[in-house]
């Protein structure tokens, strides 16, 4: 297994930077096994092409305008992912949309593609996330860890003598099943 978890977004614009903040949070909370690489992609596009080669799965984390309540996390997978970026629901669609299309064109697109999108609340200038979005970071990273678990990679919590494995039953939030591809966290 070789999985890239890619946070995208602009760290200088509050909730726009939630992708990068999620990467920081993952590094802080979990022991990252060699099968997983975490990358804060910022607002880059084609510059990231080099990072996609030879991956079994790509998990993207980004701010996504879903029209739902601020802090809502939506999961997309497969062909839905490029569609989200093409529909410009993500504020910096251009780079990632081009990246995914270019990767497909030269056969670099990983077979498994998942996007966790967080509805932003504040997109002003600043390094701090809004309280609504900062409040879901913990759950967001747990969702990513569970996603990795479903791909066969166990992420263990740091700072525990015998780190317990993560399970869905350990969650503190309600999971609403919208359709087979969408999990909404509210």
């Amino acid at each position, binding site marked *: 297994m070789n999985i890239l978890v890619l946070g995208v977004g*602009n*760290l*200088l*614009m509050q909730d*726009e930077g939630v992708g990068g903040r999620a990467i920081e949070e993952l590094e802080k909370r979990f022991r990252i096994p060699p099968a997983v690489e975490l*990358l*804060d*992609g*910022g*607002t*880059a*596009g*084609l*510059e*990231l*092409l*080099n*990072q996609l*080669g030879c991956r079994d799965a790509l998990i993207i984390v980004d701010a996504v*305008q879903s029209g739902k309540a601020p802090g809502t996390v939506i999961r997309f997978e497969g062909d839905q992912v*490029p569609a989200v970026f*093409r529909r*410009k*629901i*993500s*504020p*910096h669609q*251009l*780079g990632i*949309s*081009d990246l*995914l*299309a*270019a990767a*497909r*064109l*030269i056969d670099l697109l990983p077979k498994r593609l998942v996007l966790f999108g967080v509805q932003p609340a504040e*997109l*002003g*200038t*600043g*390094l701090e996330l809004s309280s609504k979005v900062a409040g879901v970071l913990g759950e967001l990273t747990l969702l990513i860890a569970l996603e990795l678990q479903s791909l066969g990679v166990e992420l263990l919590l740091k700072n525990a003598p015998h780190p317990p494995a993560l399970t869905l039953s350990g969650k503190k939030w309600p999971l609403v099943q919208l359709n087979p591809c969408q999990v909404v966290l509210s």
Partner: protein
Amino acid sequence: MSTRITIDPVTRIEGHLRIDCEINGGKVTNAWSSGQMWRGIESIVQGKDPREVWLYTQRICGVCTTVHAIASVRSVENALGMEIPLNAQYIRNLMVAAHAIQDHLVHFYHLSALDWVDVPSALKADPKKTATLAQNLSSWPMHSTQVFSDAQQRLKAFADTGQMGIFTNGYWGHPAMRLSPEVNLMATTHYLQALEVQRKANMIVSILGGKTPHIQNLAVGGVANAINTDSPATLTMERLYYVKTLIDDLGKFVNEVYFKDVCAIGAAYADWTAIGAGVKNYLAVPDLPEDGKGIACLLPGGYLPGGDFAKFHPIRTLQDEYFQKGVQESVKHSWYQGEWTRHPWDEETKPHYTDFQDNGKYSWVKAPTFYGQPAQVGPLANVLVMYAAGHEPTRRYTNLALETVGKQLGQKIPLEALHSTIGRHAARAVRAAVLYEVLQNQWKNLIENIGSGDAKTFIRPEFPKGEVKGVGYHEAPRGVLSHWVVIKDAKVKNYQAVVPSTWNSGPRNGQDLPGPYEASLLGTPIADPQRPLEVLRTVHSFDPCLACAIHLTDTEHQEIVEVRAT
């Protein structure tokens, strides 16, 4: 009666740019360039430790992360009047040159070639004829019938999915598209190959910088790379030799494919050497220093008012006062409070949004001037300035480009042809060829310097009590980038970034003179106002990158070309 067209946003660029044109008798008679996003980096870094500012400034833009990092550390080093180790200069130089080549390749093939190359037409090409044509142009090994046939199949499969992805928003079949299906297939195949090749340039930056897209190895005072010829955790000989093979591969593509494609497309669209000149005051800064203080720069800079070589004023070092004193920005037509024109060290950033006012404020971009005049920056400015300064590799590659096109057309092409839309593409290819030689040279110098026993990469900066000012500039892929810092008691008091796309995309200045995009569009012929391909050709030729000129606030926009009679 005139027609007004609004293109909002201009696609296949970074960031959000709006262009308005008035068209009379099939030609553009007035134009406005408007940045639609506000940038706030200046306020974010106030009060921060100057040694950390580069970490934030490289977040200004997703494409040009490295260049904002470099300009930022240079500004602080300039304020402190400090030297940095030679190894640090070489490592920085290798990173910026590799980044620039990557940027130029992506700009030509992936962002602008589709203005000239009709992708669907490539599906009709004969791969065998395409191979013959390509083999006559160049010795690049990937020019067999099989390669072109494979590329065509790949394109077809992509088109059949109904999702053209990166190929959407092209004006396919437009009357101004005039390449044969075979040339279109050749160029589109190179589009695919360039996707692979640009990754190699990216790997060079990644190996030296620790990571991309955000490099980790910079420091005020040098670089954080430890050089140890045997330790696997540091910059080893093995890694440096790998960098060398990547440089070699890049060079083959730049010289045998990119340079020759630009010449071929330039010859096919030779009439575009008479379109799109605009502002002919060219400004470029020196770069690639080969000493600790930035006095001896490998690439010369200067100012060329009116494109007149007799009036050329050189800018030789990273400490140049003529440059420092000449730069001002005006907000008379920008969405900031007041109507001032000021030096970057004395600016403030207070937004004041009005609405789109044709004769008032209409852009988030400020209007920079050099000694009161608008100036064009970018590869064309860089190449003309280096040509004027007598830089040998620049003269050699420029003359080669003009001769190559001249041979294809059976006529002599003068240097003046470069003052144009197609000239900007030619200059970018010339610059890429020059930068490839620079990469080879800087790699050799780094190896020799390490070989001489020098492993130093960092000098600790010392901050004085009280106030110091500095400017760091860099000849970035899109032109002159300058970061201006005022430091008080080791904290940032004021910070301004005057970025390349600000110079070019700026609105009218304090004297109401149009900026380079605006001036370049005047007189452009428009075949069909509903499909203003000609406007995009000229705007794209500047390689707009508005993501750093300003920032993003709007997400709901779909591309609109609005045409109305006025």
